[in-house]
Structures are given as C-alpha cells and as structure tokens.
C-alpha cells in the first residue's frame, strides 16, 4: 500500500511497480509507464496525532481531501547527475561525474550504457579506478581519454632548448620539464620524463621520453641550440619572416 506521511507529501506514481503489484488488493489500473511529472499536494484537514512510534491513523473522508501546492512540471527542469562509463564527446571520459538534461540521460546515455547512476556502489567503483591510476600497479591501470589526447599531442611535438656551450651537468630533468611548460604548455612531472642515459655534452639533436600515466611512452625530439636571449630571438624571427614575405 502507499506509505503516506502526514503533512506535505508528494504523490508519486513511483518506480516500485513490482511492490505495488504484489500488494494489489483491488483491481486497479496503475500506469506501467514511468512517472512523467510530480505534483506536490497537501492535506486540507489536519490528521490527529497518534501514539508515539505508530503511524498516523487516517479514517475520515476529510483525510482524503488534498490541496495543490505546486506542480513540478512548471519548475525549471533540473539536471541529473550521472557517471560516464566511456568517452562521450562534449561531456567527458570514463569515470567523470556529469550533470546532463534528464532527456539526454534517459534516452541516450543510460539506454546505450554510456553512463550509470551515481549510486554509492558505482561511485566506489570509479573512485577505486581513479586511485589505481595514481597509485596502483601498472597492469591494472586504464588510460584516460585526456591521457590519449596528450599522447597524440606529444607525438607531433618538438622541443628546442637553448644552452650555454660548456654543457657539463646543466641539462637536468628540471630544465627540460621547464622547457616543456614554457614552450608547449605541457606539465611534465620529473618522474614522467626520461633523458638519454649518457649525459649530454654537445649541442645537437637528441630524444627524450615522456610517460603519460605510466602507460604510454612518447619520444619527443629535443634539439639543443646555442643560447640566445629572448630579445635577439625575436629579432631573428622578424628577420626570417621578412625575407619570406618578400
């Protein structure tokens, strides 16, 4: 039977149809389709208090008289929260919690299995996945869609480092990471970068390797050029552009 709470309550043609069917005493036609909208009603007459611990007793005809408080279909449509299971364009990747319109979520994401409801169990699963990405073993990790994009970007990336000529130990990982940030706008932590084993002594072209999330490694060509101040570099660029246009 319906569980009614005294005072305000929402009349839901709610989800538990199996429960309703099991407890049907009278032949009632209950809609099989999902609840389309919610109407909030209030009892007109006050129900007298019952004993502590016992539900209120509804006996009179007047307890069935309701007053409309508001119809939720006139409210602005709220968004629903879902956790994505795959990469969805414009929303995010696997494990991201997104807010989408109810129409999109119910007609597209949930039926096609692109997202799941953020129940506590689901949230736990995806939080675990994220934790494994940072701290867990390499075999268990799954590459994120942002990681894949970064890998694609790095495959076509080139680095130019200006160094003063006696390069004894000056080319450290920190210098290369700083160069990545300054020139390409990529943040590379020290543990993700690998420089060639033999220490570099001369100017020229070399490789360096960047590991994204510990899974994919990209070789980025790195060229050591003689150090030039930024002012002089700008002048040189201008000179290069002028003959091109001419």
């Amino acid at each position, binding site marked *: 039977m319906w569980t009614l709470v005294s005072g305000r309550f929402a009349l839901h043609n709610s989800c538990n149809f199996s429960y309703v069917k099991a407890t049907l005493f009278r032949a009632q036609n209950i809609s099989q389709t999902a609840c389309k909208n919610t109407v909030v009603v209030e009892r007109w007459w006050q129900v007298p208090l019952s004993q502590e611990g016992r539900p209120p007793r509804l006996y009179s005809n007047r307890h069935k008289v309701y007053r409309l408080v508001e119809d939720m279909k006139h409210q602005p449509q709220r968004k629903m*929260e879902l956790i994505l299971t795959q990469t969805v364009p414009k929303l*995010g990747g696997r494990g*991201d*919690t*997104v*807010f989408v319109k109810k129409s999109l979520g119910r007609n597209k994401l949930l039926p096609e299995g692109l997202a799941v409801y953020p129940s506590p169990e689901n949230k736990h699963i995806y939080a675990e996945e*994220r934790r494994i*990405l*940072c701290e867990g073993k390499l075999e268990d990790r799954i590459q*994120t869609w*942002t*990681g894949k*994009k*970064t890998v694609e*970007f*790095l495959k076509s990336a080139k680095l130019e480092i*200006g*160094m*003063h000529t006696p390069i004894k130990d000056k080319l450290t990982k*920190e*210098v290369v990471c*700083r160069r990545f*940030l*300054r020139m390409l*706008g*990529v*943040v*590379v*932590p020290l*543990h*993700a970068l690998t420089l060639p084993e033999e220490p570099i002594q001369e100017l020229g072209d070399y490789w360096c390797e*960047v*590991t*994204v*999330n*510990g899974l994919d490694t990209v070789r980025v060509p790195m060229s050591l050029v003689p*150090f030039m101040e*930024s002012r002089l570099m700008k002048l040189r660029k201008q000179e290069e552009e002028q003959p091109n246009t001419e």
Partner: protein
Amino acid sequence: MAASSRNLLRVFAECQRQLFIARVPTSVCASHNAPRHHPMRTYAAAAKPARKQKKDEKVPTKDSKEQEEKKKLLQKQKINDTSRHKPYGLTAWAPVDDVYLVRYYPRQVYEPEVAVDMLKTFQKLDFTPEDQPVFLDLQLDMKLEKKKKIDPFVSTVHLPHPFKKDINKILVFTENPEEARVATENGAAIVGGVDLIEKILEDRITADFYLAVPDMVTKILPLKNKLRKKYPKSKRGTVGVNIPEMLALFKTGHEYLVERDSYIVTQTATLDMPKEHILDNMRTIIKDVVAHKPAEFGPLIDRIIASTKMSEGLWLKCEAFLPQEDVKEA
C-alpha cells in the same frame, strides 16, 4: 493587379528620390505593365539630405561601433561556472593525469610565497640573469555606486626594501631662504624660486619630483603645461609646509600610476632580493592601492599577477593580501 502596380509605383518613386534621376526601370516594372515614362525632374537637394543627416547622427559611426565591439570582447562575459560539472570551454576542474596540457584546465592561482619561489626557480632553469626586476600587475575595479568611478590615480609609496640604488632628483620651489636651507640639508637636488621657472621652461633643468610651498603655487602656474603630471598638487602630497617630511617620502619613494583606466604595472623588487623582502614590498604597494577605495563598495583589486622581466606571469591569490591577517597567517 492594381495593388501590384501601386507597389511598383511606390518602389519606383523611392528609387527616383534616392537617385534624383528619372529612369525607366525596366527591371522594376513587371512585363505586363506598360513602361512608364516620367518627366525629368531634378529635386531640390536640401529636402531629403536634411533628414538623412539626422539619421546619421543618431546611428553611431563605424569606428565607434568597432570600438564598442572590441570593448565587449575584452570584457569577457563572466559565465557562472560553479554549478556545472566542468568549467565552460575546458575539460575539467582539475587534471586527472600526471602529464597534461595546461590550456585545457582552469588557470592555477598560487599563494604569494609559492609564486615567488617558483619565479626564483624559473630564473635558474631558464639561465636568465639574477638581478632582473620583479613586476606586479594589478587589475582594479574602479566602480563606485551608480555611474561613479574612481579616477586613475598616481601615488608614491615608501618601500621597506628599496631596489633603486640612486635617490630621486627633487626640485623644491621656495622663496624663503630658511626653507631653502632646510631643503638642501634634507637632500633636495635643486632649490629655488621664480627664477627656476624660466630654466625649466627652457628644459635646462629636469627632476623626478617637484615640490612646492603653498605660497608658491600661484607663481608656478606657467609651468603647469610643461610639467603636466608632475606638477605640484596638494592631493598628491607634493604641496605642503613640512619640507623635510615631503623630501623624506619622495627621496626614496616609489611612484606608480594607473594606466588605461584600471591597470597598474609596477616594478616591486629585483629577483636577487630575499623572498621576504619581495613579499614585503608587494604587500606595501597593495596596501597603498587598496586605500584608494572605501571598503563599502567591494574589493578594489580584481586580479594580481607577479612576473619577472623574462618569465611568464603567475596569478596570485588576492585573499592573501587582504587585511584579514588571520587568513593569511594560518
């Protein structure tokens, strides 16, 4: 049929009015109408153009339209991001991977101490000189109430750890010989009276600051156009009776001004100074800036960027500089 011919007539009349020439418009008249010949009439030029001029005045010219559009583009529409699952135009609130592209995530805002440390490491890793200047870039919110703004101001601050090696050159206007003596004792470069005016007009003498006694203000008027911004003004503190005090402020003072309505870009220190000195200087300047707006109208500073001459700018947290000291010290 009749209606269409009437419309056509109206159209034709309009064309004629605009072109002042009677034409036989073969394109306008439909084929089933006989071609209409109208007598050649030259209209009086004054009639219509008067109306047109009014219209032009009301409608803004192309240049000002472009300027307005540019202004609108510059003032980015602030979209309320907080309720969304990710900020507009970016991938997420915070990066998930260890290697990521900075432009897909919201800009990182740093604590001042962290930022100064970062600037120092940048200097070492980029092989740039150690004594490069550290700049502070502030964007101000100059609005007060309805349709009222703070005027762009110029002010001088006394920095706790000055980075300038040489003292500012100061010129003092006084007629009184005693005051002149006091001024020269306290370090004024040039002291004089009315006779200095000619020399300044001829550009023989220049100075960083010009101070004056209230009696001299009327006599210095011819220099107003010459000195412009540096002209002595009681509001700025360059006109006063207490000469030693003014000299003390302006000798070692650091001057900054508001450019382009709401931006301040000043040098605060040099990178080889210890971290605490740089931070102290920044805090003094920001305190002085904040004093220009009464507290009821909201915070004056929109954003703070710290940078050196050869590095990128790092955004600083404004809350760290607010007078609520407990938040900062915690």
